[in-house]
Every structure is written in structure tokens, then in C-alpha cells.
């Protein structure tokens, strides 16, 4: 077995270019004859668009052309990729999402016109000269007001309620009945705060068009170039896929925000053909804040019914989920199938009913953001359990243990449709108890008290569904795409391997981990394996990277293709050694005939495949290249138990995270260092949500936390050193690697741990505070202390 195969913490090879400034991001690409686009955007959240006067701007130096909605007549709108049916079987309301605003603007940042000029500065200057005549209309921001007769975001659909979804609708009566009989009901109203994604690299796109071949190329900051090619080609611009190439080169972080098909991508592709020149657009950070799909923004009432011993009897919720002004690509799936299906958590709650009302408001569209629906589910469950434990006088660990699905109860059918294949929630909780030294908490609390600080402990578990998804299942649920993954494994004549994967790496380290898997399977050094991704011209149709699916789905496709390679290579080896291929074994890069000392090296077999002088040509094609598509039979279900210790300054309300321990069950792990890095990043974002981040709109719909001066990103000083463990592994039962996915876990599991800890600190100090909404800013915590 190679020392750098599965389980080895080898360093990330992509970091050589990322850390030396030699990465190639979309904005690094400059094409001959390139022009530049600058978007004129709405400054009001809601308004009637009367006139766009481009006369003066068109005469400005360097201006090539100015585009408005008129130029997009006959062009499709940006499609939504998931159709939800409501409680009554009615399809969701689906308003048009034009590339450039038509007749109305619906959020600050809504694109109205685009100037294309010789230089970016010229485009920007001319954009300032575009005169926009808008009658500002009252903006609708509060979700409850929006559905209770507020101004309509989309007049033509007649309502701000996109859908009123019940899940599982058939559970409703039994759930209500269980509540009626319960000994105790704990109720909690909470807000899952809106977040701005803030990938390090702002979005960018370059459209290119070759009139001689009628070939379009789009370079874009995407997590899934094939999805963009399909959506933009088929639904927006009407370009057949063989005439459209989408390249997503190095991408500097996505967190979900780069999954979606955005107007700017369609624009540069469209304009490049019109102008017969490449058109480039790069977002400013200010633009990112008002155009990148934002995350979360749920307002929820959750109720938990319990018996006297603290056993969960039933759970029901009513959630208002903000869609923003338009339906972003996967927006409708997030509060529904990525949220409602996880409402059982790690617990045996027999009756669960989830109601979600998705609402249009005059804000930036909302879509998946690291965790996507699962952080919202986890936060509700784990906060209400904590509150219930207090109300019943139970230890927060004990109430959870009493309700855990036990290790011998898998596969476990939850009341919210999904079947968990494996898990051991007691094991992760036990590990957490020791690793976080929960027994020593009282001592640490006493020390904090000496310094005048209120120390609190928050504990919770989480479960998530990763590796989306079985295509036939998501198809039934309304997905308008399949969610398999693809890989082509190309073995070169000299033995090197190139893997063309439909997964896309934008920070996850695929270029390092995927070769580890191949190296392990074949027994060759990782250096012999290269990963190619992010170019529809080079890789088979793939669905991209999100929902922690790359290794579980993309990795499985790669394993499948590699198994085909090995099977064929064995036949070649059998021919070379004049043996039966059933007797051939592959170990450490060497094929041998079982029970003999005959062997042939991997390299010799590869060479024979491409120089087939001594080769069974009558029964075997030359070459060694295989493609596989893998469609999972189930989601994977990573889970974990997290503990957070905080110190609250009672005078200022400032919260310091003193310790954070994460025990995760990711199944098998390929590169522990990369997994730890993913968990670190996820927890950082989770603590950011819990304490700092908040995308705030004022009463007129202006985004007033629209810069890093106002939107508080977590910094190193806000975060503790983490203790991270993934030793309690229960491998996934249905994918070949037994992996579950680790990309989002930290962001899912950590916010409730932080909030539970702060509430615990205040409760222990005798303050009757049962909940504070995130972010737990000093002002909010201080106010809660004052009002207690």
C-alpha cells in the first residue's frame, strides 16, 4: 500500500500555486480583444422602471454598446432548478427572472443596464452617465407582512407566497394528536440570521464567441460548469451544448454562492456574440454583497412535545423562509427537502410535521449557503431540546441520550422520509464528553468566575444529508436535474493517470485527495495521478460540487471507472502472462498470477494497451480509458456531537469562545488533514453566524451591512483552537469508499453549540434568559442580561 494513499495526511498539491500567487482564476484570464462590462444596478429595493436613457452614456469614450432589457427580448429568464409542490399539490409560484430588469426593479442590485467598453474604467464612467428613471415603490421586507397583503414583489403572480409546504403532510394529524396528549410542550421562536457568503474571490465571468465556428465559451466562477452550460444553454440563451463550452478554472471559494446560474454569466455570453469580442465582468466586493445569493434567513416557531421522562413524542414547526426577490437556481429546495428531511436530527421522534412558507421579498435572492437547510434544521432542533431540558430539569446530554437512535437500530426510517444507513450517536457523544473534558467544566467555570466572567457550556448533535442524491428520488421531489456524478479515468501509455471528474474543486482539495484514492486502488504513487476538472470540453457531464458530495458521489464515479480500468488491465496482464484474468491480482502496482511468481508491472500493462503488439485484439480494444457515472442509492448521513465553552462578560455582553470540540462521524476518511481543515473552516463560519455575521436591510430594503466595515466576518482572534476528532466512524454502507462528506458539518453543527453555551452561561448566573437570536452581538447579550 502506498504511504500516501487513503488515510494519509499528505499536503495539498494545489496549495503550491495558491500560496505562490500562480493560481489561474477567472479574472486572471485575459483574451485578445477583450472588452469590459459594467452593470448599472438598482439603488432602490422596489420600483417601477420607467425609462433607461443611455444617450449620453453611449457617447462616452470607449463605449462599445449599452444593453438594456430591450436587447433581451426573446431571451429566456434565469431558471429555477427545483419545483416544489405545496401542501395541496399545487406547484409553486414561479416568477420570471430576467437577465436585465424589465419594467420593475425588485432588489437593490437588480441589474438594469450594462455598459460594454474598451476598458473597465471607461465602462464604469459611462455607467455613471446612464440615466435611470424609477418611481420608488414601498419595499416589502418582513416575511409575515409580505404574505399578509404587503406590496407585491411580482405583480403577475398575484402573491408573495411562493409555496406553503407541508412535510410530511400525512403526518400532520398524528403530530397534532401527539401534542394534545403530551405531558410537556416546549415552544421556541427563533430567527436563523441572513448571511452574505463572501467567498474570497468575487464572482467573475468572461464570454467569448468564435464566429467562424459559432462556438461560445464562458469562463466563470462556478462550482458546477456543466450545470451552468445546461441551464444557460437550454433555458436562457438557446445555445446547444455542443456549441457552448463552460470553463470554471481555479475558483476561490464558493460555499454555495457559486452553484447558481447568474445573470452576469448569461450577459457576457450573449454580449460576446453581439459584439464579436470577448466581454469580461468582475464583481467588486460591493457588488458581491448585493448580487451573490445570500444564505439562511428563516423565521421559525418550533414546538417539541415530550413525556415526563423527557422522551420526544412529536415535533412541529412553522417556518417562513425568505426567497428574496427572485428564485435562485436551487433556492426552493433549501427550506424544503434539504431542511424538512433532517428534522428528526439524531433522535427517535415518532411524529414530525414541518410547515414552510417560502416568501418573496425585496431583497437579494436567497439560496444554499454552506449547510443549506441543514444548519436551519439543526439549529431549531438543538435549541428547542436545550430549552426543553431546562424546563424539565434534565441534563442536556442526558435528554439527548434518552432520545438517540441507537447504534443497533440502523437502517433507521425517520418520519420525514429519509432512511439513515449508519451512525452511532452514543459513541460520538461519549467521545465528546471525554475529549472536551466536560467533567472539568465546573472547575473552569470557577476560574472564569474569579475573573468576573460567566462561563457556559453548550452541547448539541447534528445530522446532515450529503452526497445529493438518488436522481430518481430527487426527480420525484421536483428536481429538474439528475444528481449523479461522472469520471473519466485515462491511463497514459507510460502509466500515468489523468482523472477527468465532474466534481469541481474550489478549495476542497480534490487535486490531492482524489489521487490518493487512485494511488490506493492501483498501487502507484499519487504523483502519477493528475486531476482535471472544471471544463465542459474536457470532462464528462458532471453535476459539480456542493452539499458535501464530491468524494461520496464524484469519488464513487472515479472508483467505478477505476474498477473498469483495473478489470481491463487484468485482462491485458493475463494475456501478457498467458494466464486467466480471473487469476490475476493487482497489488502495489504489480499484476501477478495467483499462486505463481509470475508478475508484470502496471507500466508494462499500460504500454501494451497503447502499443498493442502483443495484445488480444480480437477480444479487447486497445487503450486504457474508462468513464463511469455514479448515481447514489441514498444520501450519506454524517453526524456528530459538538461542545462549545464560552465566557460572557456580564458588563459588556461580549462573548468569547474559549473552547470548541467537534466529534464527527464522516465514515471513512481519505486525508485527515484536509478533513480537519474543512471542519475548522466550517466551525469558523458557524461561529461567525452565531456571534458576528448578519446581512441587514433597513426599512427601505437598503443592504446596510454591505461592506466589511459593517458585515462582521470572523477573524482569527474570534476563534479558539479547535479539538477535532473523527475516530467514531461508521462507514457509509452504500458507496464504495464508505465516505460521507465533511464540507459543511462544521457550519451545521456549531451555531447551536455557541448559542446553547451563551444561554447556559446566563442561566448559571441566575439570568432567566431562554433564548437570544443570532448573531449574539455584545448589544444583544447585554440587553438580554439587562432585561432578565
Amino acid at each position, binding site marked *: 500500500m502506498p504511504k500516501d494513499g487513503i488515510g494519509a495526511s499528505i499536503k495539498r498539491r494545489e496549495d503550491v500555486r495558491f500560496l505562490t500567487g500562480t493560481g489561474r482564476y477567472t479574472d486572471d484570464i485575459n483574451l485578445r480583444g477583450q472588452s469590459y462590462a459594467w452593470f448599472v444596478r438598482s*439603488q432602490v429595493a422596489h420600483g417601477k422602471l420607467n425609462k433607461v436613457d443611455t444617450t449620453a452614456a453611449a457617447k462616452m469614450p470607449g463605449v462599445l454598446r449599452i444593453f438594456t432589457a430591450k436587447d433581451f427580448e426573446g431571451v429566456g429568464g434565469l431558471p429555477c432548478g427545483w419545483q416544489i409542490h405545496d401542501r395541496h399539490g399545487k406547484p409553486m409560484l414561479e416568477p420570471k427572472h430576467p437577465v436585465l430588469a424589465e419594467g420593475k426593479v425588485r432588489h437593490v442590485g437588480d441589474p438594469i443596464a450594462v455598459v460594454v467598453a474598451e476598458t473597465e474604467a471607461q465602462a464604469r464612467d459611462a455607467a455613471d452617465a446612464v440615466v435611470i428613471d424609477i418611481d420608488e415603490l414601498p419595499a416589502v421586507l418582513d416575511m409575515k407582512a409580505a404574505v399578509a397583503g404587503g406590496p407585491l414583489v411580482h405583480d403577475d403572480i398575484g402573491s408573495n407566497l411562493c409555496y406553503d409546504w407541508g412535510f410530511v403532510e400525512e403526518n400532520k394529524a398524528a403530530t397534532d394528536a401527539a401534542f394534545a396528549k403530551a405531558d410537556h410542550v416546549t415552544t421556541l421562536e427563533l430567527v436563523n440570521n441572513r448571511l452574505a457568503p463572501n467567498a474570497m474571490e468575487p464572482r467573475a465571468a468572461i464570454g467569448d464567441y468564435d464566429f467562424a465556428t459559432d462556438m461560445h465559451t464562458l469562463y466563470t466562477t462556478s462550482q458546477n460548469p456543466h450545470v451552468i452550460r445546461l441551464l444557460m444553454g437550454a433555458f436562457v440563451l438557446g445555445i446547444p451544448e455542443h456549441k457552448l463550452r463552460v470553463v470554471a478554472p481555479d475558483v476561490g471559494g464558493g460555499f454555495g454562492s457559486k452553484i447558481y446560474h447568474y445573470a452576469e454569466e448569461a450577459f457576457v455570453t450573449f454580449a460576446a456574440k453581439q459584439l464579436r469580442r470577448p466581454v469580461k465582468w468582475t464583481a467588486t466586493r460591493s457588488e458581491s454583497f448585493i448580487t451573490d445569493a445570500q444564505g439562511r434567513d428563516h423565521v421559525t416557531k418550533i414546538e417539541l412535545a415530550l413525556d415526563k421522562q423527557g422522551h420526544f413524542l412529536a415535533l412541529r414547526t412553522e417556518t417562513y423562509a425568505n426567497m428574496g426577490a427572485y428564485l435562485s437556481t436551487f433556492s426552493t429546495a433549501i427550506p424544503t427537502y434539504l431542511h424538512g428531511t433532517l428534522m428528526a436530527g439524531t433522535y427517535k421522534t415518532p411524529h414530525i410535521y414541518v410547515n414552510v412558507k417560502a416568501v418573496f421579498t425585496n431583497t437579494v435572492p436567497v439560496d444554499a449557503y454552506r449547510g443549506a437547510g441543514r444548519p436551519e434544521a439543526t439549529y431549531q432542533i438543538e435549541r428547542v431540546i436545550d430549552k426543553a431540558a431546562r424546563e424539565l430539569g434534565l441534563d442536556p446530554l442526558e435528554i439527548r441520550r434518552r432520545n438517540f437512535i441507537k447504534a443497533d437500530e440502523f437502517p433507521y426510517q425517520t418520519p420525514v422520509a429519509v432512511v439513515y444507513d449508519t451512525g452511532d450517536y452514543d459513541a460520538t457523544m461519549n467521545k465528546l464528553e471525554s475529549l472536551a473534558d466536560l467533567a472539568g467544566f465546573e472547575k473552569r467555570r470557577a476560574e472564569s468566575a474569579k475573573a468576573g466572567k460567566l462561563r457556559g457550556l453548550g452541547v448539541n448533535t447534528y445530522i446532515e444529508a450529503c452526497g445529493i442524491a438518488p436522481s430518481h428520488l430527487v426527480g420525484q421531489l421536483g428536481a429538474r436535474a439528475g444528481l449523479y456524478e461522472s469520471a473519466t479515468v485515462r491511463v497514459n501509455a507510460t502509466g500515468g493517470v489523468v482523472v477527468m471528474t465532474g466534481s469541481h474543486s474550489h478549495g476542497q482539495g480534490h487535486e490531492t485527495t482524489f489521487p490518493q484514492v487512485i494511488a490506493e486502488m492501483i498501487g502507484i504513487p499519487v504523483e502519477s495521478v493528475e486531476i482535471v476538472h472544471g471544463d465542459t470540453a474536457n470532462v464528462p457531464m458532471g453535476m459539480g460540487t456542493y452539499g458535501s458530495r464530491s468524494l461520496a458521489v464524484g469519488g464513487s464515479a472515479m472508483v467505478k471507472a477505476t474498477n473498469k480500468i483495473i478489470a481491463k488491465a487484468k485482462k491485458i496482464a493475463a494475456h501478457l502472462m498467458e494466464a486467466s484474468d480471473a487469476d490475476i491480482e493487482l497489488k502495489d502496482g504489480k499484476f501477478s498470477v495467483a499462486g505463481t511468481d509470475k508478475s508484470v508491472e502496471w507500466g508494462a500493462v499500460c504500454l501494451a494497451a497503447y502499443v498493442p503488439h502483443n495484445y488480444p485484439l480480437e477480444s479487447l480494444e486497445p487503450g486504457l480509458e474508462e468513464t463511469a457515472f455514479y448515481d447514489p442509492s441514498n444520501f450519506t448521513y454524517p453526524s456528530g456531537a459538538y461542545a462549545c465553552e464560552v465566557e460572557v462578560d456580564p458588563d459588556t455582553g461580549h462573548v468569547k469562545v474559549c473552547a470548541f470540540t467537534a466529534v464527527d462521524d464522516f465514515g471513512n476518511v481519505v486525508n485527515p488533514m484536509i478533513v480537519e481543515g474543512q471542519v475548522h473552516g466550517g466551525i469558523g463560519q458557524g461561529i461567525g453566524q452565531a456571534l458576528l455575521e448578519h446581512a441587514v436591510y433597513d426599512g*427601505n430594503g*437598503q443592504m446596510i451591512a*454591505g461592506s466589511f466595515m459593517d458585515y462582521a466576518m470572523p477573524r482569527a482572534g474570534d476563534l479558539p483552537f479547535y479539538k477535532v476528532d473523527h475516530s467514531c466512524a461508521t462507514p457509509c454502507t452504500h458507496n464504495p469508499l464508505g465516505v460521507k462528506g465533511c464540507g459543511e458539518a462544521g457550519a451545521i453543527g456549531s451555531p447551536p453549540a455557541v448559542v446553547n453555551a451563551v444561554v447556559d452561561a446566563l442561566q448559571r448566573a441566575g439570568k432567566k434568559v431562554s433564548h437570544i437570536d443570532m448573531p449574539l452581538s455584545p448589544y444583544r447579550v447585554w440587553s438580554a442580561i439587562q432585561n432578565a
Partner: protein
Amino acid sequence: MELHDTRQIEASPDLVWAAILNPDVLKECIPGCESISGTPEAGFEAVVVQKVGPVKARFTGLVQLSDIVEGQSLTISGEGKGGPAGFAKGGAKVRFAPEAGGTKLSYEVEASVGGKLAQLGSRLIDGFAKKMADEFFERFQAAVEGPEAPEPAPAEGDAAEGAGAEGKKKGWFKRMIG
């Protein structure tokens, strides 16, 4: 944001009322005002240069007077468009009442901003609007109050400071029409 304040002006209500309807007064009193034209009836076109935090812009817009109750109260409202910098909207309900031989002027101001101004500078807006309002009414007070000589006005700390700096202009409106 909203703010309200009162100010005692040592000039008759008639004089104060005339001043507030005069575009020259408005030009002198609106901080950063480069030009203003128009009439109380039709409204005034104004160009104002201002800097809010990191955003500096030339705002053009219409200032309108409404709810006019002769000699007693009116509403000044305006919207300034600053191009790519965004926009600012605001209004002030101003009341005039004779008091202690002069005029008691009370005002309620509300202001909002949009676009880049809101995105980058919203946290500065409350302070900015207060400063704008204070400056406006200080200058206004200086314009209409006597004496004609450039001595500091009695009492009123803030106003005295402003009046000192603008000493030579003090009472210019009073002189003009008096």
C-alpha cells in the same frame, strides 16, 4: 433616522419666514450647496456636494416646500441623486412661533439614504444627518439674526462657535432686506 430639535432665533417670525423661502438663504445655509434655483412654489433645483464616510458625491435634486401654513409651518423635502454614490432623501417639518421677542423654530428631520451610501455609509448617516441639520440651522440663524456687527451671538454654545466662524456673514439676510 429621525431627529428633532428647537432653536431660538433673535429675529421676528416674519423675517424668519421670509428667509426660509429665499433660495439665496437656502444656498448659503445648505452645507455643501453649490447652486440653487427656483421658487418656493415650483420648488428649488439644488446641487450639493457632500461626503459621507467613504462616499463623496455631487447630489442633484429637487427641494420642495409643502404643507405651507403662512408664517407658521412648512415641510422642506428633497431627494438628492448622487449617481453611482446613491441617493439621499429627507424632509424637515419646521414650525415657527413667536417667543421672547424672537422666533422659536422647531424642526423634525427624517432622512434616508440608498445605494452605495446605504451600503457603505449607513452607520454614519445618523451622525451625518444631525450634523447637516445643525449646520443648516446654525447658518440660518446666523443669516437672519442681528446684530449687524460681526460679534459673537450671546449664549448658545454651538451656535456661538458657528457664528464666530461665520462672523462676517452674520445677519447678512437681515441687512439685505432691512
